């Protein structure tokens, strides 16, 4: 497959950019933050729903647009440029993706519909430790005959504070199978501790104390939970890489503009070779980022058996590059770069959180090395 986006995908990217330029400039993030760290603008989310963004990856069989992940990637990249706050990562990238692999057809059809029409928000609760770890699962789903009971604690749940449903990973009593259960966030026995992070976004610690789960609310069947969860993680890693690609480019372009306008010693600071060479190096790193993100997005749509490796390469490379570019962006802005008035700091603060979401660069480089047998 050619490593380029097609005309339809380009149109989606352009229309997304035009929409966000108008409706979600960078100042929106500042406004929501200054309004008690609101998680997102609900009216704006409904407009995104009307644009079809929650239906992009849903198959036609469930009345979705079947536009694929290369398409969703373009939307995420543009949102990354604006650091737009929305439930798209929690509800679409993570939850809708996970649901798409479920064999529970009745629940699947219902959830797809509720996500596509914007009536429900969904979060995935998985992490139990300080670092991303797909294998650390102590939450327990006990079989009580007519239904199940869930016990355990989760942390770093994206948008957990506003979601209607939480998809919770756990193990069964045998300790062998990963179970994926859909839980209503209003259920008895759930308690939330919502925490604002550096990127002005809210992540929840959630504890489950004898929470009842109906049999019909299981998204995993038999032993397919592990496969569904890990496939979801790989796809979501690529989606996060696409979002990072947008943020990286925006921070870089803002910085290049600044170098062309700011004067010191009677000249534009962009004429200094010390800054030019570092800028040129960043340009090269960003070119590499574009290639791996597109390759990995295409691998999702073509069901490429290399997806896991490509996802890790994408997450590792983009994490490292976002760190580099966000640091340089702040440094090259000089004093203004460390003030709250300047937008560039938002990119630095977002970089440090998204870098770690679903595994940081170290995690993914280690994973690639293991896949290559060393």
């Amino acid at each position, binding site marked *: 497959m050619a490593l380029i986006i097609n005309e339809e995908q380009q149109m989606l990217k352009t229309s997304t950019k035009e929409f966000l330029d108008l409706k979600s400039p960078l100042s929106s993030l500042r406004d929501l933050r200054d309004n008690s760290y609101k998680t997102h603008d609900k009216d704006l989310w409904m407009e995104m729903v009307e644009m079809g963004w929650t239906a992009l990856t849903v198959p036609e069989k469930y009345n979705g647009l079947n536009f694929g992940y290369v398409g969703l990637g373009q939307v995420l990249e543009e949102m990354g440029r604006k650091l737009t706050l929305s439930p798209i990562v929690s509800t679409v990238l993570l939850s809708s993706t996970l649901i798409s692999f479920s064999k529970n057809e009745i629940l699947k059809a219902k959830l797809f519909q509720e996500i596509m029409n914007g009536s429900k928000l969904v979060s995935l609760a998985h992490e139990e430790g300080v670092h991303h770890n797909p294998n650390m699962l102590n939450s327990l789903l006990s079989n009580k005959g007519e239904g199940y009971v869930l016990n355990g604690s989760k942390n770093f749940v994206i948008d957990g504070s506003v979601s209607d449903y939480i998809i919770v990973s756990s193990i069964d009593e045998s300790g062998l199978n990963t179970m994926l259960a859909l839980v209503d966030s209003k259920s008895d026995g759930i308690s939330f501790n919502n925490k604002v992070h550096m990127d002005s976004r809210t992540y929840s610690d959630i504890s489950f104390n004898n929470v009842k789960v109906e049999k019909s609310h299981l998204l995993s069947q038999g032993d397919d939970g592990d496969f569904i969860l890990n496939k979801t993680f790989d796809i979501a890693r690529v989606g996060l890489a696409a979002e990072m690609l947008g943020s990286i480019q925006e921070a870089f372009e803002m910085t290049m503009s600044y170098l062309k306008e700011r004067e010191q010693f009677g000249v534009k600071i962009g004429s200094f070779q010390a800054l030019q060479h570092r800028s040129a190096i960043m340009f090269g790193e960003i070119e590499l980022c574009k290639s*791996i993100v597109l390759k990995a997005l295409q691998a999702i749509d073509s069901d490429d058996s290399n997806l896991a490796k490509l996802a890790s390469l994408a997450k590792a490379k983009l994490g490292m590059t976002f760190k580099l570019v966000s640091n340089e962006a702040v440094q090259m802005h000089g004093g203004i770069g460390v003030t709250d008035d300047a937008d560039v700091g938002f990119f630095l603060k977002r970089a440090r959180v998204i870098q770690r979401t679903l595994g940081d660069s170290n995690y993914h480089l280690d994973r690639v090395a293991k896949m290559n047998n060393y």
Partner: protein
Amino acid sequence: METQVKVDLTSFRMETRKWLEDNCPESMREKLTDPNQVYWGGRKAEFSNKDQKVWFEKMLEKKWIVPYWESKYGGGGLSLEQNNVLNQEMGRLGCRKPHINFGITMLGPAMLKFASEEQKLHYLPQISEAKIRWVQGYSEPNAGSDLANLQTKAEDKGDHFLVTGSKVWTSFGDKGDWIFCLVRTDSSSKHKGVSFLLIDMASEGVTTRPIKLISGNSPFTETFFDSVKVPKENLVGTLNEGWTIAKYLLTHERQMIGGIGDTDKKEYLRDEAIKVLGKNNDILSDTILRSKIAELEMNQEIFDLTIQRTMDEHKAGNSSGAASSFFKYYGTELSIQSEELRLSVNGFNASEWTSKESNNGLQARYFCRTKGHSIEGGTHEVQLNIIAKRILGLPSK
């Protein structure tokens, strides 16, 4: 229509694969360890072994020495897509190039764009039949990074130019038959006084002297021109407009140095590391080296994807992607880092210089050679300047 093209390409791939399997000798599928293992052609050429001769002649017969040139220039007339398929299939088997010549990678593209039809019909078939070995006369003692400062003079003497001066860093200058040269034809303007001239090195007054490098080898020479008569018709393009050709040719040189289009079989540093260092609990025993190798191999893999993406964008009519300066910078940087890590992997053995076991210090000498990669064809710093100014539009003082 599109489907038909795909079908044709698939059958071309199948035919090519079979033909290569049938015709490429086994020893020509082994990784190159020395540039002398390639057939460089030219007047003084000799084959170093029988397989090399067989492989070259098979490919010559197929017109695949320069597969993508038009047949009137001695090429195979393949489309860009077919040529990519051929490269991929050669890469799959690890087939060596049957012939390497700066006439193919540097002069050819410049001739195709700037030479007269008469010149093309004269010079290009000699290249695609490997009859002439070309070398490049660009740098001078006082014109390295500041190439346009070149002083080798070509005086107009009516029916010929009289060339006087010297060039430096001529790759394989002692083995070349002809040299494509930048010469000064007007000293009143720096960039607008340069011309592009083809010179037969057998002409009276041309001499070379080898330059010994830190690797102990001498792949470069100095080249001297002492009142050399050069026919007027050897001028390519317009008089005093040679700088445009020079720059165009440099973009091709950078791609070549960056390794674009190489068909060598991939060899992974990780495999060498596993062999030499061993594993502990399935993990490479030196864990710090392991993370460095993982990062390098990540960048190598993504750099290859970036070459592919740029070619695909080019095919789709969108060439806004990364420029040759970036490929030159990044490609050579990766080879430099790779050789540095290879030294760490191989420990005491890596620095052996003359022993039989080390194949006369192959690794150590190649490590030394890579230090030139970030200098030749425009230093790292010159490439970064070009990216900053031409692509990013950062201001000059």
